[in-house]
């Protein structure tokens, strides 16, 4: 126990998903910096019990197959024990809608404590630039992995370009997520 523990709030802010829809309108601005949307997106959450997980998968299939935003999707686990629902949509805005539905399913299923981030992939000169949505802060931040490094200058410039239209988190929260499975 550190002596500064009393500064910590008792509760985490609840995850929210409405701000996800602020991403599609800035797509045009991003293209000015050479970013191409890929339609690839994903939801990352802390793994849940096996039975819940199977049920969730069934529900996810139903939701993602029976809406008006056709997509392919895959479920995988990563080395940190987090589950990824990777969604391949026809466009970035379809991807946002699908991520919204998948997130809603998780929140309604009572897995709100497990949900971590949503990730949207763009490409710049064939290299990925991700916009990561932090559910609890209801803000986005950019992540441009380049090998084992990240291109923080590019990320900062992206931030300056979109920060008036998109809620971008402060630099202190730009946690990397290495090995995003798409």
């Amino acid at each position, binding site marked *: 126990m550190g002596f500064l523990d009393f500064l910590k709030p008792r509760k985490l802010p609840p995850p929210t998903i409405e701000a996800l829809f602020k991403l599609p309108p800035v797509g045009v601005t991003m293209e000015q910096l050479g970013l191409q949307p890929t339609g690839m997106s994903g939801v*990352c959450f802390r793994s849940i019990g096996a039975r819940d997980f199977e049920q969730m998968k069934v529900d996810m299939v139903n939701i993602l197959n029976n809406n008006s935003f056709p997509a392919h999707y895959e479920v995988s686990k990563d080395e940190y024990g987090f589950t990824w629902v990777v969604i391949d949509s026809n466009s970035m805005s379809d991807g946002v809608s699908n991520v919204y539905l998948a997130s809603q399913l998780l929140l309604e299923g009572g897995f709100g404590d497990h949900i*971590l981030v949503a990730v949207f992939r763009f490409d710049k000169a064939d290299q990925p630039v991700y916009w990561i949505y932090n559910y609890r802060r209801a803000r986005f931040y950019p992540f441009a992995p380049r090998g084992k490094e*990240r291109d*923080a200058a590019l990320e*900062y*410039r992206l931030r*300056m370009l979109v920060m008036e239209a998109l809620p971008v988190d402060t630099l*202190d*929260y730009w946690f990397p*997520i290495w090995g995003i499975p798409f």
Partner: protein
Amino acid sequence: MNERVIRWPRDVGLSLRMFLTMVILGAVYLGFLSVLYWLGVDITMLIIIAAVMMGIQYFFSDKLVLASSGARIVSPEEAPRLHAIVDRICAETGLPKPRVAIVPTDVPNAFATGRSQSHSVIAATQGLLNRLNEDEIVAVLAHELSHVKNRDVAVMTIASFLSTVAYYFIMSFMYGGFNRNREEKNTGGLFIVYILSMVVYVVSLLLTRLLSRYRELAADRGSALITGRPSWLISALLKISGQMERIPSRDLRSEEGLNQFFIVPALAGGSIMELFATHPTLEKRIRQLERMEKTMGYQ
């Protein structure tokens, strides 16, 4: 003399703001002197003292700065990479090659000084050379050489003359040296002069700092035009400003219990100090470079 004269496209707005600042500064200067004259204050002595002090500062600017910063002039053999970069920029801009110095500190920074283009020194800290990549170093040195090209030492020395005079005035009041010139003047008149000097000092300081910030923006422009890559300087500025270091390096998933969301972020925002700052804010500088990047086109 240099045959090659490079023509830089002008930023009309920036030039206009710079010009206006200098006009206002000149007006304050003249206003101050005429009020002193009208009050019958003998200011010849003070102006001579200030002029001598400024003259020393101006003519020995390179030596003074080198001595106070601990910078050491390095030969091409000692610092081949740094010299090669300076050589290249000088060849491109037609500037005479300045002396090159290294400051043995870990803080990433660079500066240029010297009263004229042929008496200039360009210095980089060891921290700058260690932390920045080749492109970023080129951008920073191009910024510094733009200061040399724009004759910023001369411009800023002249611009700060007024605040120096006002400063000596205030000082001479405080130490009573002024009494010798008082003659038949009453203390009320002296008090007015004292207050006036204070006001003039603050106003002219504000104006010179404003001018300094414009010169910085002009040097940023110069760097972007020399390298053709504004993004190099953006990247360098981010590293020098320490902004990059705020970005966390631990993977989000390895943070236990999501506690990372409750780190209290550093408070940010504009403040009164911005008025007195010698450099524009990082955001302002990057915005200008970002605009240039747009017009120059992306690679």
